[in-house]
Each structure stands twice: as structure tokens, then as C-alpha cells.
């Protein structure tokens, strides 16, 4: 593998783009070309549209796409959660059926995990799937499902056995969201956006071949999805910057992003917008306040050391060293950063923090930070759950005492949930 180094990869991708990048193609036609070449997802395995590159090499590829102004594979929304889960647990047919259209952007996905009665306790799911001939029949309700209102497919966790301990009775399915048995209702969030939804499943159908892994193996599959989701809190994925570029393929791309990213426009704000912190202190004059200076310095230290810690974890991994605790801490760090940043933005903004909307500071961005930050420590696993995991898995502390052993049927659970 001596020829796979950053320099060779860079010149190879550059050459390929010189020959093939064609802004006059339609977005889907171009992306299909891209998928066939392996440059759409170079860090995926060679058997499934990738080149088996490390993430470091893959970022070299991203740089070259950006430099050439070439559009890469679709990346918005939970599609990558679907992709990693399929790559790890899907069978050959499932991978060939779904992965391509994830990359071309033709299909989008959502994650049907949380339910009114079970959020942190994902394994307490009471949405049921019953096999009837060649179809699974699904009944129940999911909630806080981001992007369900755009999604073509869902990653569904449902109960297939009520008489075994709860983790063993779950199965994981790919469900077609565009069917009569599924009703999606948008939910309005405290920050005014409506990115997540309620999803009602009433005799919704899943063909037998859309079971991922084995019956009863749903928990193991879900863990893959969750692990990826938690890591993604520390990373923001880029994509080629096309703001200055014109041509129909760019228009198509921008339109795709506008729709697919609509649920996520406030995500930078929920992370606290550390990038605005110094600027805000300077433009409001609060930079002269020694208390603000201390808080600003604290925030910068927190956010920089968190970034470097994640990088340290990745560097150790790439050097083939045993995984340290660094990798597990990103999500908890992200919550601390967001909260610290929101406090600082309040202090630097002063009474104008009373305002919201277009005429408030930074066209409402500051106000949006203040009411979006609470999501970080809930979505994708709450801080408390993260701390349990860190304490138990990294520090080796004793597990929580359990009251949910034995057949799921007998486990205490929320009362207002439709019973079986």
C-alpha cells in the first residue's frame, strides 16, 4: 500500500477531477459517476463504493473537492447514521440497495428510536413489530424524530419479543416512510423551529428482507448508530463551499441543502457559537470588563482543549495505540462548552438579550443561541447518560442497580403508554 499516501492521493483525486468534474451534469448524474469512482466516500470499504481510506486521507480528498469547486456526495441529515449502520450490520443486498442512493442524495433518512415512554432508556421501546407472512406489521409511536418530515426511510427499533429481557427483544428495521401506515406530525421546539416530529405507526409494513441483522439483535445494531451519533457532536461536517459559484448543478445542490439542512439551521447556535464570543465582547465593549475577560478566556480554553482532546484521541487511534478515554468525552465537553458560551453571550449582550428576531443582535442569532443550547445536553443521549457511560466504561465504576431485569412484559414502565 506504499502508493496510498496523502501526496499520491492528492494528485490522483486532482487528476480525476480534472477529467471528470462536469458542472453541466445533473446533480444525480454527477453523483452516480462519483459513487462509481469511489471518490464519493473514500473512507468506505472498497466493496461498497469506497476506497478503504483512513479519515485523514479522506480529508485530503475533501480538500481537493473544495479546491476544484466540485460537489461531493450528499452528507446532510441523519443519512450518515444510516450509512454506518448499514455498512456494519447490513447484508450484501441491503448495502447495494441503499448505500448508493444515500450518497447520491436521492434518499434521505431519519432515526426512529425515541418514544414517548422511552428516550434515554431506548431498550424500553414499546413500539411493536409482528411478523405476518412476509411482512412485519408495526404499531406504536416515535417522537422527537429529526427530519422525519423529509425522510424516505427510517431506522426503526421495535419490540419483537415481550417475554425475554428487554435488550434481547428488540429488532432493527429499515422502514419505508412513504406509506399509508405512517403519519408524521411536526413538533414545534422551544426555539421556534420545527425540526423534529411525532411519528405514528399504525399497521405500517416492513418487508421481511428489511430486517437488519437478526431478530432480537436490534440493541446491538442501535449501539452502532448511537456511537456514531455521539461522536458527530464534536465534528461538524463540511462540504464544498459553493456560495460564489454559479451553474445549474450548483443551484440544484444549494436547493438540496436548503431543504435537507432546514432542520439544522439552528445547530451551530445550539453548540454555543464560540466563534462569535471574542467578536461580541469587542463589538459590545464588554471586552473591557475583567469578569467578561475571565469568562471569555475560560470558554476559549474549554473549547480549544476539547477540540485538541478529540484530535489527540484520533491521533492515538491512527498511530494504532489503545483507545484512551479521550474519544468518549466529546459529547459531554460539547454540553459544557455550549452552556458556558450561552452564559457569556448573555453577559456580553446585556439588556439586548431580552430581544429576539431580525432586529435583535446579529439578526436574531444571539437570541437563538440562548434558546437552542439546552438541546445539546439532551439530544443523542443526555449528559447524565453520558456520565453513566464514562463512569462505567472508562473508569470501571460499578453499574447502576437495575429494576428492569426479567421478561420485558413485567418491567415497570410509564403508565400512559398504549399497552399491548
Amino acid at each position, binding site marked *: 500500500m506504499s502508493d496510498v499516501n496523502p501526496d499520491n492521493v492528492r494528485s490522483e483525486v486532482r487528476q480525476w477531477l480534472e477529467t471528470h468534474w462536469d458542472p453541466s451534469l445533473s446533480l444525480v448524474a454527477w453523483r452516480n459517476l462519483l459513487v462509481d469512482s469511489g471518490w464519493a466516500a473514500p473512507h468506505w470499504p472498497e466493496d461498497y463504493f469506497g476506497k478503504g481510506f483512513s479519515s485523514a486521507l479522506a480529508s485530503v480528498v475533501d480538500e481537493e473537492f473544495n479546491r476544484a469547486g466540485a460537489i461531493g456526495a450528499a452528507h446532510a441529515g441523519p443519512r450518515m447514521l444510516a450509512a454506518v449502520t448499514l455498512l456494519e450490520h447490513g447484508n450484501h443486498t441491503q448495502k447495494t440497495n441503499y448505500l448508493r442512493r444515500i450518497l447520491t442524495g436521492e434518499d434521505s433518512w431519519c432515526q426512529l428510536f425515541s418514544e414517548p415512554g422511552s428516550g434515554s432508556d431506548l431498550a424500553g421501546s414499546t413500539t411493536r413489530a409482528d411478523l405476518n407472512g412476509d411482512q412485519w406489521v408495526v404499531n406504536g409511536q416515535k417522537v422527537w424524530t429529526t427530519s422525519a418530515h423529509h425522510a424516505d426511510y427510517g431506522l426503526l427499533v421495535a419490540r419483537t419479543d415481550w417475554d425475554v429481557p428487554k435488550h434481547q427483544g428488540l429488532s432493527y428495521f429499515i422502514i419505508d416512510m412513504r406509506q399509508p401506515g405512517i403519519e408524521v406530525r411536526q413538533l414545534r421546539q422551544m426555539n421556534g423551529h420545527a425540526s423534529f416530529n411525532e411519528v405514528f405507526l399504525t399497521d405500517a409494513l416492513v418487508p421481511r428482507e428489511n430486517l437488519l441483522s437478526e431478530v432480537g439483535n436490534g440493541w446491538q445494531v442501535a449501539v452502532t448508530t448511537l456511537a456514531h451519533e455521539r461522536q458527530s457532536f464534536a465534528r461538524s461536517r463540511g462540504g464544498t463551499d459553493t456560495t460564489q459559484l454559479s451553474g445549474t448543478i450548483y443551484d440544484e445542490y444549494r436547493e438540496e441543502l436548503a431543504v435537507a439542512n432546514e432542520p439544522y439551521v439552528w445547530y451551530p447556535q445550539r453548540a454555543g457559537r464560540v466563534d462569535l464570543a471574542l467578536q461580541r465582547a469587542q463589538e459590545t465593549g464588554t471586552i473591557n470588563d475583567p469578569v467578561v475577560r475571565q469568562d471569555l*478566556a475560560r470558554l476559549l480554553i474549554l473549547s480549544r482543549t476539547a477540540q485538541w482532546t478529540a484530535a489527540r484521541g484520533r491521533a492515538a487511534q491512527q498511530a494504532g495505540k489503545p483507545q484512551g478515554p479521550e474519544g468518549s468525552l466529546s459529547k459531554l465537553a460539547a454540553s459544557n462548552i455550549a452552556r458556558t458560551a450561552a452564559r457569556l453571550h448573555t453577559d456580553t449582550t446585556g439588556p439586548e438579550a431580552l430581544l429576539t428576531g431580525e432586529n435583535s443582535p446579529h439578526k436574531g442569532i444571539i437570541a437563538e443561541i440562548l434558546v437552542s443550547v439546552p438541546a445539546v445536553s439532551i439530544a443523542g443521549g443526555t449528559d447524565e447518560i453520558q456520565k453513566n457511560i464514562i463512569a462505567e466504561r472508562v473508569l470501571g*465504576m460499578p453499574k447502576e442497580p437495575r429494576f428492569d431485569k426479567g421478561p420485558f412484559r413485567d418491567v415497570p414502565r410509564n403508565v400512559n403508554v398504549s399497552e399491548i
Partner: protein
Amino acid sequence: MHFSFSDDQDQFRGVIARFCRDKSPTSQVRTLMASDLGFDPEIWQQLCQQVGLVGLHLPEAQGGSGFTAVELGIVMEEMGRHLLCSPFLSTVMASTAVAQAAGADECSTYLSRWAEGKELATLAVCETDMHFEPHNILLKATPVDDEYRLNGHKRYVVDGHSVDVILVVADTGSQLALFEVAHNAAGLTRTGVETMDATRKLAQLDFQDTPAVFIGALSPAQLGEIYNTLLVALANEMIGGAQALLDAAVEYTKLRVQFGRTVGSFQAIKHRLADLLLEVELAKTAAYQAAQALAEQRNTSEMASLAKAAASEAYLQAGIQCIQLHGGIGFTWENDTHLWFKRAKSSEVFFGGPAYHRERMLQQIIESAARSETSVAEEINT
């Protein structure tokens, strides 16, 4: 920048760690902290002769070993983890100072004098605070024949009561310079002071027409670089100590039983330890990155102060939590936790507290943000 230790560095850490573990059980720490000298000369000489620690982080051309601040950080971290009582910090202070002030040959001569660990040296800078700011250095150096005479005082001089040679930063009236003073020089009074952290010995030095040898001038920038090196060294020592406290807290709470279960099974305690792990890991990263930045001579003041601030908070938190999670036994003299707690407390204020370093870091960040804005503006204008 991605930071990862090389295999050689990991091996080097292993050697130092083993040495510290073997030579510095807490029984030994307790004996040494009760002694006047504060360390065991035999162990120190072994360390110097077997590992070659003196001048570790200095270039070969100056008589050093040619390693960098990263290796210096590794040694400090392991010493901090085991609270090894040794004159390593004072030696680092002295060697870093001669490397800045003296010519290459002269520096080599000093380092070879100290290499075996028999002649000991320290650096005396601070008089009021511990910030190494030029305007706070008031001790006067006056030329007399081909020598100088020093008048004034220095405080918080590490191992100042016991070393053979004291390097003193003094004001000649026109500039700051580094001077060498022998321990038995006329007019020098050395008073060991009682320290809350007895594992780190400090002295007050009074100079009255004390003869001194001029080593070289020190610009404010050079003084700043000495300071940055010492901050990075100390920050790395501190994260070693913080990790030791975290480990101790985890170990104890997994064993101690109350209410029919180990106290470590209570979520209040698990969550506190998870929070502490995060804080300690972030501080470790800061200390490693600062050492790397120093090795590459990149944003040294910003990074050194960042690391010192982060390490101060994390070490102190680790001290507080470790005592709290031990309960009553944690407040006894017999339990070892207070040894680290006191090192955490003293390191917190040593070379300036976290609030001072946050401010120092922020000033650098603001300046470089302004610089990059002006350079963009200049580019646009031209």
C-alpha cells in the same frame, strides 16, 4: 495540529515512571518532606547519571541533550504523579536561564558542572509576585571592578536554602541581567521558609553588597521565554498529580462500602468522577499541546498560560474531589491525599494563578486576532 507521543517518547516515559514509582513511595515522600534538604542526594544523582536529566530540553550546541519541551513535560508529569522529591525543578529553572543569557560555550560549561547532580543550582527571579514581569525586578546590580555587587532580596526561591549556586536576575540600571552567586558569598543570607506544601522547599534570599558574576543580559522577551518554559514544565507536573488523585478517588470509591453497596455505585459519585475525568483529560491535552508549541516555538506565551490555567483548575478540582470522596479519612494526616492536595494548592499559585494566566492568554489571542486583521487589511490596500 494532531498530537501524539512517539514510541521513543512512550518508552522514555516508561523509564522515568518506573524510576519514580520505585524511588518515591509516599513513605519516602513523607520522610523527605520532613527533612531540611527535601530530597535524597543519592537518588537525585542516580537520576542525573542514569537518565541524563540536566539540560534534557536544551540543544546539543548548548551542552543539552537535544530533546525538547515535550520530553521535559514527560519527566515532569511522571515526577508529579509520584510526587518525587528532587531538585529537578530548580535545575530546570537554572539551566533554562543560562541557555537564554549565556553564550553556547558558557552554557555548556554550566550544564557539565551540573550534569552529575552533585553541584546544584537554582534561579532567583521573584520579589513580590511570581509573574516574571521585568518591572517587578528591583534587585540592583552595581559594577565594582570586574565584578558586580547585588543589593535587594528574592522570595520563593526553589531549593534556595540548599543549592550551591544561585542564578539571580537583577537590574543593572540599564538592563536586566543574569548573575551567578555562590551559596557562601559574602552578604548573602538564606532563610528557608515554612511551606504549606512541604515537598517543595522555598527560601528567602537577602543580598547585601553580595559579589556576583555577570553571565549575560536578559531581554524582556528572553525572560518571557524562561517563564514560558517553566510554566509548561509545571503544567505537565500538575497533570501528573491530577491523574494520580483521580486514580486514587476511583480506586477508593470502588472499595468503600456504605448502605450495603460500594460508594462508587452511587450516581452522585460516578457523575462527579466523570466530570473530573473530563477536566483532567482536557488539562492533559493543554499541557501536551503547550509543550509541543514550545518545542516548535509557536504562540509560546498564549499556550503556556493556557496550559497553566487549565492545569491549575483541574489539579485543584482533583484535590478537592479526592478528599471529599474519601470522607473523614481523607482529612487525616495519615491518608496520602493531602500530599497531592497541597502540591495542587501550591502549584495553583506558583508562577501566577489561573486568573492571571487566563488574562495573559487572552491578551495574546486578542493581539494575534488584531494582527491577522491588520495583515488582511494591508493585503486589501496594496
